[in-house]
């Protein structure tokens, strides 16, 4: 029998200890509220909007549907691990350059999902981009510039 608390996981390359994850809290909630990493957003809380996306041991997941206590010992990559405001990562830079951000609430999940896509498929077609981002809702942009940003970034690496 293993009690839930406390436990350790690595977030963005840093070992973090979680003192408590309450009554079965999600990874998204623990990242935001316990580990002070508010970059990961919570939209729907049901795994359908994608803004809480993180990489869990290099696999794209909706962190609002992942039991935090079950990630003990795992490696988590959040949007905060993929660049900062002063030193944006390539995906973040591509989104800025394409004007692909409006309200920005979907952007953290988009950055993580795009990072996952390009790691798996470095030169995606537009259809592959749309399919890969089909779990990331954006209610502002109409997706056009987001998709253009991904294709432009892939082009840089071609």
């Amino acid at each position, binding site marked *: *029998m*293993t*009690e*839930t608390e406390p436990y350790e996981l690595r977030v963005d390359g840093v070992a973090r200890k979680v003192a408590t994850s309450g*009554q*079965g*809290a*999600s990874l998204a*909630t623990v990242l935001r509220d316990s580990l002070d990493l508010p970059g990961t957003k919570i939209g729907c*809380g*049901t*795994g*359908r909007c*994608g803004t809480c*996306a993180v990489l869990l041991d290099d*696999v*794209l*997941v*909706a962190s*609002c*549907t*992942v*039991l935090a*206590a*079950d990630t*003990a010992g795992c490696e988590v990559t959040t949007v905060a691990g993929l660049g900062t405001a002063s030193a944006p990562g390539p995906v973040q830079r591509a989104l800025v350059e394409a004007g692909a951000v409006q309200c920005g609430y979907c952007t953290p999940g988009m950055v993580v*999902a795009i990072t996952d896509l390009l790691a798996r498929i470095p030169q995606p077609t537009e259809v592959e981009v749309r*399919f*890969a981002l*089909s*779990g*990331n*809702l954006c209610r502002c942009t109409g997706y056009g510039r987001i998709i253009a940003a991904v294709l432009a970034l892939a082009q840089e690496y071609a």
Partner: protein
Amino acid sequence: MTVVRATTVAEAVDALRELRGAVLVSGGTEVVVGLNEGTLEAPHLVTLRRIPELRGVRTEGVDIRLGALTTYAQLAAGTGGVPALTAMAPTVGSPASRNTGTLGGALGTGSGFGDAVTALLALEAEVEVEGAAGPRRVPVAQWLDRTGRDAGDLVTAVRVPSGTGSQHYLKAGERQAVFYAIASCALVVDVAARRVRCALGSVAVTAVRAREAEDLAAQELAWEGDRPVADADLCRRFGDLVAASLPEPPFALRASAAHRRHVAGVLATRALTRATAA
């Protein structure tokens, strides 16, 4: 709350028995959402994803045995080589939820009428269960109607008979990604029996077999070797009979009963058309 991170099936089954009200967590896509929304009360959780016995796919005799932790993403990539499951999996949820959601979870916590169970019903799959009295196998129909299910059961695998006939999965809903079905249709050609097996999802509280339409097809299909042959009229009558023979849909979520029934019939016609295409 106690969270047991089980690493063996025996440990998980023991924990289920010892911790009153314990809930199993596989990928978390249903349980954690229930906890988020306060619709699920779980005094204890038993997590399964660290149990190697629940992973992996292998062939045993004529069966393909898919471990309970097989994800939708793995199925969509062709894992197991079961065409109905390969076609079903990419219609479920988002890419991220397909990475976490599992077959065992669909059976253990699922609503009974979702995508995976609909495909499994048409496949006449068996559910491998580890319970208080040891391991057993339950036909998926009895698992879905709960006559074959006991408290304390842990789904360890799903067994699907391998077949040579074509398999199809069609799903209609309000969008093309991250959507629940208004209706879905799984159709499996059983070459040995000279029949097709057809199951409908999201039209009743569990997935249902379309027995009357299956019988119609058995009487009227011609066969060219392993391929069934039907004209457009038979495919149409097959779908019409599917629609007419469905139980009254008990919910009007996302679509009226009449629309749901109509869509189910259209999907069944389309599935048989594909199964009989040259």
